């Protein structure tokens, strides 16, 4: 049910933005994320930015994974 791709906004117009996905660029609509800023990552689905990626939460998720992984590793060392 719809994979989206995270893309970095490099240029912002009124209703659209140019985004970069690992060096390739394309134009996406930003009507659904009017507050997006250059430098933000957005989730793109069918040519539209649907959501802005929240960096704090993203970091937090990675930390959670790492915590679990580290816990296991240290257990393994024990």
């Amino acid at each position, binding site marked *: *049910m*719809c*994979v*989206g791709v*995270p893309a*970095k906004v490099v240029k912002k117009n009124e209703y659209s933005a140019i985004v970069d996905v690992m060096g390739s660029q394309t134009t996406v*609509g930003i*009507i*659904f*994320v*009017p507050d997006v800023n250059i430098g933000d*990552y957005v*989730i793109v*689905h*069918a*040519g*539209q930015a*649907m*959501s*802005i*990626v*929240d*960096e*704090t*939460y*993203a*970091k*937090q*998720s*990675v930390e*959670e*994974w*790492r915590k*679990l*992984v580290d816990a*296991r*590793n240290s257990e393994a060392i024990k």
Partner: protein
Amino acid sequence: MLEILKQSSNPEICKPLVEAVIEKAKEFQQKFGRRPAFMEVCGSHTMSLARTGVKQCLKDEVNLISGPGCPVCVTDQRSIDAMIALAEGENRIICTFGDMMRVPGSNKTLLDSKIAGKDIRVLYSPVEAIKIAEENPDKEVIFLGVGFETTIPILTLMVGEAEKRSIGNFSIWMTTKLVEPVLRYLLDAGEVNLDGFLLPGHVSIVLGENSYKYLVDEYHISGVITGFETAELLFGIYKSIELALTGQAAIINNHPSIVTKTGNQVIHQWMDKYLTECDEAWRGIGVIPNSGLDLKPEYSQFNAKKRFTVEVGEPRKTKCRCGEVIRGLISPNECSLFGKACHPMNPVGPCMVSAEGSCAAYYQYMRESF
């Protein structure tokens, strides 16, 4: 930030996560004497779980059941036949997502019609259809509006754009589906035993975390909103088992970087403006009341179903069990046609051809003949 995003597919994280999930699953098995069972609601989850190898790695420990989340697969056969018949009309340009092209109708596919000379175009970005309509004023341009909550907002954008530019030759053939009614149907039917749902990451962008409260309140079942990368999938399953072990029902937002509590409010405004609830027929299920969205009457000029009539006969009967696959009752390899009469080169049901179809996922990523 890219560095952070990349971590979700970092094997150094993902491999230990697999072990962590397996360990947690074993704990569940010891406690309950069976594997924990979760339904991934979303077709893209099915694909990602298979493609990344998560399903294979966990197959002995966790029962991951595909749900009704592939928009092409859940579309009623009569509706598929209608879209193919629509394309037969003269002076039309049919625009569609690529998945629809090879979906078997009762007699033919859209691809067959294209090969026979019909103007059927696969769009990467649906709003392209508006441009096509402008460039072909003497043709009727019809977009096949198949999709769940992530795609539906984009259909409203198209209508908004067509309205703004006063485009008279554009319309959408609406056959959309909603997640909540079908989950309620499955739970009411009680055919599958589940320890929780893996809730769709991107549909949840629109719906928001709070929208799933009914699962807990009315059905006492858990849901974990989950992303699509390897680590996200694994951690979503980990959290699901953890919850199941406690015996408590809860909704966990395991994808908070893009899913908020209340969903994208701008999108809600667009949908409220243009759409109204309608009954929809689901493959293998039948009509579920208020399980789809249609254009409000004041936008009928953009509603292809109001503008064009198509005649379809009784759908052809096959031994395809897509209906049961969608409901999570069987896994694809339990269908007697799987891999024999039915394979990606000759799909008998939509589940074998959609990029999110369970049968396609099994065939491509999970056959074990090696």
